[in-house]
């Protein structure tokens, strides 16, 4: 009798175990996903995680697979990572990215650095959540050009994805919403916190004289006080690329004096319809700025020197140019040494640990 019970128990256990190894057949057998402990670095603000998309180890890993999967493009050649290269701080070294079939976008690929803290996405802020943002490039004709229903069909046909969705969400159903959630979870892990600047803030290293002078320039009001009230001969960078929370962006939208008119690209006004928003674009973070050339929303500047020179000139007047631009008072009036110092400081924001982090690379 006892022997019979033991045999029965072993058989039941064996059957149960074999069912659990086939998650497609047994939706109930997926274990609870493992909570992902996001490490918020010192000096950073708290990151808001949507209540309906808690981060999990399995969700982040699924997002990583999706991020690097070219099968999510029409011809199987373009993944998210194609235009967000780690070596370029998860942006594109080209002024505008090339999508499926050679299609060209109209704006420079934005860096994916610390975007978990961003309250809006894209140069014109047309998405206000990461979950929304990541859904746009896949069907976009200039990017991955794959309608969502086809993308989902490909994921369902893949031998690997149903199990990964099951592990991340408790059952193997593959939906657009879940795909977006997993991508957003992965992108939230792209945190840069180990630049020389960070190590300096943590007291682990010191800046060179040139870097420190550049830092002071960064934080000083711009302009000659003779012509610009309150001017301190500084770089005037801090107003927009604010050091608060060490994010180096205020996440606001500004017209930094690139063009006199906005026919080519209305920027934020294209989203809001407000004339005052014409020519305004999102302030990008300066983290890894030395790696993320070219610069501006259209990638018009190829070097940091050109960028500094643009601000030094004061910019091009227009109806919505930001009052921080010194377009009426002769620009910033920076000396060659000051410019060099400023660039030296910007290089301290380079985080090679971040760009080489294996957890962010293509897992295949």
């Amino acid at each position, binding site marked *: 009798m006892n022997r019979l019970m033991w045999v029965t128990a072993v058989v039941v256990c064996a059957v149960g175990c074999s069912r659990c190894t086939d998650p497609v057949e047994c939706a109930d057998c997926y274990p609870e996903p493992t909570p992902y402990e996001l490490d918020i670095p010192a*000096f*950073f*603000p*708290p990151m*808001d995680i949507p209540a309906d998309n808690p981060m999990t180890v399995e969700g982040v890993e699924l997002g990583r697979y999706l991020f690097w999967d070219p099968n999510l493009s029409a011809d199987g050649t373009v993944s998210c990572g194609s235009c967000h290269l780690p070596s370029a701080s998860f942006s594109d070294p080209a002024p505008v990215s090339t999508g499926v079939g050679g299609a060209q976008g109209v704006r420079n690929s934005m860096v994916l650095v610390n975007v978990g*803290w961003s*309250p809006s996405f894209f140069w014109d802020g047309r998405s206000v959540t990461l979950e929304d943002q990541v859904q746009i490039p896949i069907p976009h004709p200039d990017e991955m050009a794959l309608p969502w229903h086809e993308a989902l069909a490909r994921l369902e046909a893949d031998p690997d994805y149903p199990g990964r969705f099951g592990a991340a969400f408790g059952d193997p159903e593959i939906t657009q919403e879940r795909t977006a959630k997993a991508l957003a979870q992965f992108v939230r892990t792209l945190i840069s916190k180990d630049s020389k600047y960070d190590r300096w803030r943590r007291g682990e290293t010191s800046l060179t004289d040139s870097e420190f002078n550049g830092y002071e320039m960064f*934080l*000083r*009001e711009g302009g000659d006080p003779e012509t*610009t*009230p*309150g001017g*301190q001969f500084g770089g005037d960078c*801090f*107003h*927009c690329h*604010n*050091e*608060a*929370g*060490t*994010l180096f962006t*205020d*996440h*606001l939208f500004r017209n930094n004096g690139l063009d006199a008119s906005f026919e080519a690209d209305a920027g934020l006004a294209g989203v809001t319809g*407000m*004339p*005052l928003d014409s020519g305004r674009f999102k302030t990008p973070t300066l983290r890894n700025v030395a790696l993320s050339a070219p610069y501006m929303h259209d990638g018009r500047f190829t070097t940091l020197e050109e960028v500094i020179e643009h601000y030094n000139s004061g910019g091009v*007047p227009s*109806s*919505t*140019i930001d*009052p*921080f*631009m010194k*377009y*009426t008072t002769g620009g910033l009036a920076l000396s060659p040494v000051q410019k060099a110092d400023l660039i030296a400081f910007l290089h301290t924001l380079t985080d090679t640990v971040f760009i080489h982090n294996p957890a962010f690379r293509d897992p295949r």
Partner: protein
Amino acid sequence: MNNISAGLAAVTVFLVAGCSFPYFTHQINTGTLRLDVEATWEGEPYALGDVAVDYADHPIQLHNLQAYISRVELRDASGEWIGNDREYEVNLVDFSVESPRIVEPFPTGQYNAIRFGLGLPPDINGQVSPSDFPNDNPLSVEGSAGMFWTWLTGYIFFKYEGRTGAVGSELLSEPIAYHCGTDSSYRVVTFELENDLWIWEQQPTAMQLQFDAAQALYATEPINVIDYPITHNGPGDTLAFALMDNIAASWHLVK
């Protein structure tokens, strides 16, 4: 004897229990004061982007108006100012937002004056890090976007940004960037109320708080926007203090 004991016991129980009975306590109920904030130009409604003319006939178009409002308090009949104990619950009024409002809890009752801090009091400004606040707090990195000064380790109390031009000109080519901050720029705005204000438990007491952007240029000291278009409240810069005096005198409470 039994009756006396029972009676004493009943009285004792009643007194002891009665103390916690709402009928016998001075229970503090809470209501809400809602201030609907509106920008005006010489008393007329003003929206960002409108072109108006200042006291000296300069055309002015404002692009950005933002103000920290802190420590909203009401004065009761005894003369005591009643606030709330939410130390870091300040308000950032952004006039680019439709229908900005300030909502504050207060004990129900009757009040005869209202006051608020324009900017952040010294015990907050420069004493806190934006990273320490949840993102929905106006003092946080996200909540204070564009209103935090690194170099002065404090917040910008008031932003008045836009463009202007010469008298009679339609060309608005000159920038205006008034950024006032620092502890010395903190001001308190007080309104003595003609009629007492009641805070009820059931429904919010709503009042309209108007900021007259035109008066901000002359209310206590005329400021020529062409001659003095910029301040960041830097060392030795007195323009911001004059502006804050003007700005403090440019608020109007409308029942």
